[in-house]
């Protein structure tokens, strides 16, 4: 990851504090910047929008998928996972636990199999459990 990507990633991690939605709500970048809080979809959409200013659309995606069975979103840059719910920019220790269903940016939408997006909202939704599992992965437990 180059310096620009790292700085933007770190900025989003540090500026957008995590707060889960009551129900499903995807914020637009300006809304998320204004609120300065959001969940995985909000911070993912914001970082993907920022990165797209510097990287072509075949390199940066907002990814919709699952983390250990829980519905989740993250950014993909050159195939690498950028986890925006972290409190600072660092490498994901368990990329094998991330399963992409679909990815998109302002130009492309890619479903990894037909109708993959229609399965997203059927995934388990428990932000507390999901974040606990992520924290355990980061701490190496």
């Amino acid at each position, binding site marked *: 990851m180059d310096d620009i990507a790292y700085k933007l990633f770190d900025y989003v991690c540090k500026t957008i504090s995590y707060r889960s939605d009551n129900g499903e709500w995807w914020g*637009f970048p300006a809304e998320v910047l204004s609120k300065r809080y959001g969940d995985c979809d909000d911070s993912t959409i914001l970082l993907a*929008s*920022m990165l797209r200013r510097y990287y072509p659309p075949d390199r940066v995606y*907002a990814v919709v998928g699952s983390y250990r069975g829980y519905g989740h979103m993250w950014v993909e840059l050159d195939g690498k996972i950028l986890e925006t719910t972290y409190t600072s920019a660092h490498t994901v220790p368990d990329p094998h636990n991330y399963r992409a269903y*679909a990815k*998109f*940016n302002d130009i492309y*939408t890619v*479903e990894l199999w037909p109708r993959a997006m*229609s399965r997203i909202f059927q995934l388990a939704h428990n932000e507390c459990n999901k974040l606990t599992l992520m924290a355990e992965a980061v701490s190496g437990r």
Partner: protein
Amino acid sequence: MVKNLEWDEAYSAVMPLLGVVIGVLGVSISLLVLTRSQAQAVGSLEPPTGVDVDVPKVRYHDSQVFVEVRNPGEWHELREFVRPDDPYLSHAIMGALSG
């Protein structure tokens, strides 16, 4: 003895008919199952356009994916969410890169 003979005749008359009925039912059920599985296979390759698919939050139309992830009835095409040209981003990007 007479009763046993009558029973045997009745049995012989009914059994072929019963066999035909079971056969027709079996073929009908097989055809029904085959038709349903083919419909599902076709559907998975080419989702119906403009129709709810499995869950109400996602719709497909003209190869585009629409999601209802804000207010009820507010549908957005996926790509609308990533907005690199949003002027509001500029200030944040300047702050991020200078920090």
